């Protein structure tokens, strides 16, 4: 740029500046959030805020910024920029004094902005993301000659209004509408994860139904829940194994099924939230509401020998806090675990105040993952009813509730890993209490609830041991005495127990004269204090007692869930110094971060209250987060592109008004219906645009941030496999149940200290949707990982889409895609066996719902002919063709399979159109 030009620009700037002054009469008010905070964050906060407060000055919190610094004076004096140390330091000529220290000085514009801000009174402001969502000035619905179709006048929906405004500001314009069938394929893939069904396709292409009606059909299909569950399960870190070293299997699938059902039922997002975070605390929770709480039992569980259960219980609690804030608040709490958030106004102790809500659940990283919800059969449920009816007649309503809870999830109980002060006893593999002959241990501070019965879960390989439980110590009163003999695995056994009040220490002692030492007489898993059933002398008691024992011994499906501690088991929460769980600081009570919405005193101070707080309409982040993530699912990019973070360090929203409009509408008009939100988006003209992009448009907006074209991006891992199975007719529509294990190469599972193996599923289970594929955290289904699926160890807001040669190898060579190619080819040949080109054209159109062009047909026909010649030439290669054993193959079928293999690898097939 030559000097003349610079001078010209400068004078232009001056003229504009003066005009600005003339027009507005005075300088415009500086906005803290958008103008000042970014300067402070970029230049100051790394030394003055959060971790460091050099010179006693911090710009993290308002009161810190205006407080006296080490010099004795505040650094910012509202109204007096030149008297403010902040400005003096930014403009000083001495390099020892000038800030930022040893770094490039601020620009004059930045300093001027800061000066103006101070002059105007240095008003501190909240970041936009922490202000509640306001009622938007809703865009007028107006009718005009549609700009996306030439003939039909159409109403402009509000999304298009907001998008259109920004397009105009950026010198861009909407693209034309996508071709109808490609658009239908886009919507079907987005809503159900699958191509449209034959019926829908017929109805739509014959114009019997409108696009909107097609969208409604898609939204009401059960495949909708299966598609959107993938999104939610990434956030919920759902997997079928425990994670960490041994990574053994766990039963979590009922939670996955809960998510699919809830999405299909369009459960309002606030209820969906409350059930998952605190379903157990709702009055008389249903089985479904209890199952929902497994959301926070997706945390990993460490079985590695030598690990401390308490350490990993705490790790799970902290993960729950971080995950909750990431999932519902787009806020990263991991930093605040160790120190005040350097950028966001959330304080170190506030992390632990939030953690206090989550620190009182019964789960303790035990090997059995208790508490677990027991899914009883209808017959068993009837039996339970009869037991409860008996208790109601013979005892109190409270007793009914307690007994019902115990049968539902076996709580409260004391895990044996709480035992201490061992003599000839140990924690076996740091998991279970083992007592040797002539050994003892203590279970301290136990509330036996004045129970006349102790239930113990234990196992023994020895006969002839005598166990005594005493109050307080070896000389204490005997509370229970009984023999222990060999058991068939671990059993639950009822022992008469002397009723005792209050918190006591139990002294557990085992004697066995015949056994050499160093061998455990028994392994204990847990202890529970549950009174015997009343009404022993009444007729029918024996039956009830039998029912009780049978039910207790339940062997069916059990799902880890959240259950709150009773008062007498409550834990205190302390701040962890520098994030270390061993270094306890001050005690904290459950509180929510001050910068967010206020707490309503009517809410209970537990997880349930916390869930109410999150879903309160005043909470600024929950609805924005939801809208942002749903938008991202459809457009491949969030309105705030950093999905995991909406704080002050996040990217600014591309369309703030749109974000707030959708957030407001979702809460207030849609009553938190996700389906309604999706419907509004996918019926907008913005969504319906063609995804074609010119080089010029691409240069202006490579990321499609302004939406001058439709979304076009590669399908996700599950969709790619589901789609291939669907178009080849192999896909099973079976829903729900335990994870399935489709074919994968041998030798993928090689976990240490874990004898489990991948046993291939048979029949239709080999071709279920990806959402049902068994997910082992340390060895996920390999082709999914290649296509960027998550291993689900921690919460994931966004899968990064990559494009690699290993992906090509999967869709070219993975047996499941070869099988799909084979069956797709069968269908193609059927069209007209005498005319392969017809079959090829049919296959292409079937896959992408668009007629094939001459060039493409020619390329694929050539491939067919080359393959045909080769197979006719070498009939040997047909015997084991594509390893499809039970099928005889002729050269035509083989050649067409090769073409189908190519079709399944087309970019346009792997990509949302």
């Amino acid at each position, binding site marked *: 740029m030559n000097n003349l030009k610079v001078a010209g620009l400068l004078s232009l700037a001056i003229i504009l500046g003066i005009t600005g002054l003339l027009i507005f009469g005075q300088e415009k008010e500086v906005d803290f959030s958008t103008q000042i905070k970014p300067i402070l964050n970029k230049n100051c906060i790394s030394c003055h805020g959060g971790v460091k407060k050099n010179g006693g000055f911090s710009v993290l919190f308002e009161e810190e910024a205006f407080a006296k610094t080490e010099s004795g004076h505040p650094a910012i004096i509202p109204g007096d920029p030149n008297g403010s140390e902040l400005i003096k330091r930014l403009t000083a000529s001495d390099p020892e004094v000038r800030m930022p220290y040893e770094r490039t000085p601020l620009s004059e514009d930045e300093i001027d902005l800061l000066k103006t801000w101070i002059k105007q009174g240095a008003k501190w402001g909240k970041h936009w993301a922490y202000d509640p969502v306001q009622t938007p000035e809703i865009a007028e619905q107006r009718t*005009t000659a549609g*700009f996306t179709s030439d003939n039909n006048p159409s109403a*402009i929906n509000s999304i298009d209004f907001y998008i*259109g405004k920004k397009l*105009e500001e950026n*010198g861009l*314009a909407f693209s*034309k509408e996508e071709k109808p069938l490609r658009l239908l394929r886009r919507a079907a893939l987005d809503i159900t994860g699958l191509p449209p069904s034959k019926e829908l396709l017929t109805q739509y292409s014959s114009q019997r139904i409108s696009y909107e009606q097609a969208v409604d059909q898609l939204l009401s299909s059960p495949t909708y829940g299966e598609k959107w569950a993938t999104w939610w399960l990434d956030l919920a870190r759902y997997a079928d194994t425990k994670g960490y*070293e041994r990574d053994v299997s766990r039963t979590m699938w009922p939670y996955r099924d809960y998510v699919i059902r809830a999405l299909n039922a369009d459960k309002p997002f606030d209820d969906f939230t409350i059930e998952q975070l605190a379903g157990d605390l709702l009055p008389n929770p249903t089985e479904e509401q209890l199952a929902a709480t497994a959301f926070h039992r997706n945390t990993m569980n460490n079985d590695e*020998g*030598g*690990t401390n259960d308490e350490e990993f219980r705490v790790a799970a609690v902290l993960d729950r806090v971080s995950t909750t804030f990431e999932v519902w608040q787009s806020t990263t709490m991991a930093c605040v675990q160790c120190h005040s958030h350097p950028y966001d106004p959330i304080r170190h102790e506030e992390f632990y105040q939030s953690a206090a809500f989550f620190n009182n659940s019964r789960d303790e990283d035990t090997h059995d993952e208790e508490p677990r919800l027991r899914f009883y059969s209808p017959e068993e449920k009837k039996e339970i009813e009869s037991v409860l009816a008996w208790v109601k007649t013979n005892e109190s309503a409270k007793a009914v509730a307690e007994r019902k809870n115990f049968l539902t999830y076996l709580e409260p109980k004391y895990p044996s890993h709480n035992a201490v002060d061992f003599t000839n006893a140990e924690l076996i593999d740091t998991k279970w209490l083992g007592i040797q002959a002539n050994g003892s241990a203590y279970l301290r501070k136990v509330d036996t609830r004045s129970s006349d019965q102790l239930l113990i879960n234990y196992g023994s390989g020895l006969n002839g041991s005598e166990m005594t439980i005493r109050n307080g110590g070896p000389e204490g009163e005997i509370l229970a005495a009984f023999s222990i003999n060999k058991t068939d695995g671990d059993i639950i056994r009822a022992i008469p127990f002397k009723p005792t009040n209050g918190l006591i220490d139990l002294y557990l002692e085992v004697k066995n004269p015949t056994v050499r030492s160093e061998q455990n007489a028994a392994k204990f898993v847990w202890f529970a204090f549950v009174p015997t059933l009343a009404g022993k002398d009444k007729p029918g008691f024996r039956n009830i007692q039998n029912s009780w024992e049978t039910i207790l011994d339940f062997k069916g499906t059990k799902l880890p869930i959240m259950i709150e501690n009773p008062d007498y088991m409550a834990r205190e929460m302390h701040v962890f110094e520098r994030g270390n769980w061993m270094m306890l600081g001050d005690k904290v009570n459950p509180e929510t971060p001050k910068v967010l919405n206020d707490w309503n005193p009517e809410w209970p101070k537990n997880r349930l209250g916390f869930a109410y707080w999150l879903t309160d309409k005043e909470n600024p982040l929950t609805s924005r987060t939801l809208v942002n993530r749903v938008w991202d699912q459809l457009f491949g990019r969030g309105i705030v592109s950093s999905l*995991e*973070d909406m704080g002050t*360090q*996040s990217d600014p929203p591309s369309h703030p008004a749109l974000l707030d409009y959708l957030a407001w509408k979702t809460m207030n008009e849609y009553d938190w219906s996700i389906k309604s939100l999706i419907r509004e988006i996918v019926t907008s003209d913005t969504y319906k645009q063609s995804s*074609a*992009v010119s*080089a010029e*448009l*691409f*240069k202006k907006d490579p990321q499609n941030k302004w939406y001058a074209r439709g979304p*076009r991006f590669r399908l996700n891992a599950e969709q790619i496999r589901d789609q291939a199975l669907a178009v080849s007719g192999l896909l099973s529509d079976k829903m729900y149940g335990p994870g399935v294990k489709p074919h994968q190469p041998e*030798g993928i599972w090689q976990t*240490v200290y874990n004898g489990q193996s991948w046993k291939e599923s048979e029949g239709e289970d080999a071709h279920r949707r990806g959402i049902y594929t068994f997910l082992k955290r*340390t*060895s996920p289904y390999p*082709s999914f*990982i*290649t296509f*960027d699926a998550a*291993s689900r*160890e921690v919460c994931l807001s966004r899968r*990064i889409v*990559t*494009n*690699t*040669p*290993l992906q*090509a*190898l*999967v869709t*070219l*060579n*993975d047996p499941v895609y070869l099988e799909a190619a084979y069956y797709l080819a069968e269908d193609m040949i059927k069209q007209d066996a005498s005319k392969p080109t017809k079959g090829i054209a049919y296959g292409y159109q079937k896959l992408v719902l668009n007629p094939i*062009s001459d060039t*493409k047909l020619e*390329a694929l026909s050539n491939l067919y002919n*080359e*393959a045909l010649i*080769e197979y006719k030439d*070498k009939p040997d*290669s047909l015997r*084991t*063709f*594509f*390893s499809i054993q039970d099928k005889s193959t002729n050269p035509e079928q083989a050649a067409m399979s090769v073409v189908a293999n*190519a079709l399944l*690898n*087309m970019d346009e097939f792997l990509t949302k159109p």
Partner: protein
Amino acid sequence: MQNLDKMLAEFAQQKLEKQTRRHFLMDCVAKVGGLAMAPLMFGCGTGSSELNLSQRDLNPLSPLPPPYGAKAKSIIYLHMAGAPSQLELFDFKPELAKYHNQPCPQSLLEGKKFAFIRGVPKMLGPQANFSQHGESGAWISDYMPHFQKLADEVSFLKAVHTDQFNHGPAQLLMQTGSARLGRPSLGSWVTYGLGTENQNLPGFVVLTSGGKTPDAGKSVWGSGFLPSVYQGVQCRSKGDPVLYLDDPEGMSRNLKKNVIDAINTVNKEEFNAYGDPEILARINQYEMAYRMQIEVPEVMNITDEPESIHQLYGTKPGAESLANNCLLARKLVEKGVRFVQLYDWGWDTHGTDHDGSIDMGLRNKCREMDRPVSALLLDLKQRGLLEDTLVVWGGEFGRTPMQENREGKTQSFLGRDHHGDAFTMWMAGGGIKPGVTYGRTDDFGFSGIEDKVSVHDIHATILHLMGFDHEQFTYEFQGRPFRLTDVEGELINKILA
């Protein structure tokens, strides 16, 4: 209303422009289309330059120059999973021998936590014989007779420490800089930062031996929050070396070439119509996949190596052994692979059985490792590769000078528990000063007393040798920049050449 009119006008204008633009692109891509199987060239004022694409947009593994001068081009990292005993290999402690079978002094136990040791264990003297070697006079035990001869080639770190004493978290810390899951591995950082030289092979290759993957699972070569293209690719000795690498039954190489040609012709036309540069990237990936199918089996096949090489390494084609993996590591870096990570499982010598005993099992295990690892260094050197290749050796922690007494009981074999306070690692090759012994432990080898280095220091040093400043090498995630070394890590200057 005014806005809309304007939009309409602009849309019409844009449509016009698009048509001309598309015409231009079509011409361009048609030119590219002629070069079916050759690597795509985007120089001709074609799609990519018109679209302002970088090489990285088309190929995320394309090589990038290191930001600072690099001392090494590639890394071979030998991780002995389970944690070998430094007290039988490199850290000679004659004093410890004197305390053999004596109860452990309380001072060592206070405030310490161990995975399995309970109460007061007995001390366990060194079970190997030590001697000094080379001009550097480094102590190396008779468990590693071949390696003794290479004393002057490597730089020992005798006082490495970690704060993790369980395998899973410790391996994660060693490989990802964090004991919790979710961070990118060292190899991912390096391939993210530098890409790789050979586009027909993965940039970050993982080879495992010992029959098991490491305790922490595949996360130790995971890409964490980095794009998954930077995760390690496990190359296997059995079955396809890379998953789904083999063509299906009945598909000849020639036919596969035709398949990829057909796919790419279709994709090129799709690009002409839709203009999405991702399509160009996909075309590129399919051609790379085809070349990878040829080159990976070639490089993974060791049968063609001369007998002398098999002798040197002790390799047996077809075996899943550390020896084979060491030879493969050399072949891979020779071919321009950026990061080769070896895991050998079976070093967790607790003394619970014969294989896990310090005096017998460990000796055998060392025998399996000594020859191939020594051979690797020699072979790299004789090929002139060592100066550009950084070789790192170590476990995830060390082992106690005390004898393990699991659950307070005496064991039938001699074993050592996990110990993170002090253990030995070594580095050699690119940028490392050979023949240095850095760091010193106390008389029991329990704690470092001089020149201690942390896991983060090791990462900082490795990144430095690869041409990065570990404090500036960051990735933006969750609203803040992340580093491999988090807020720690100092260069170990004394071992740098």
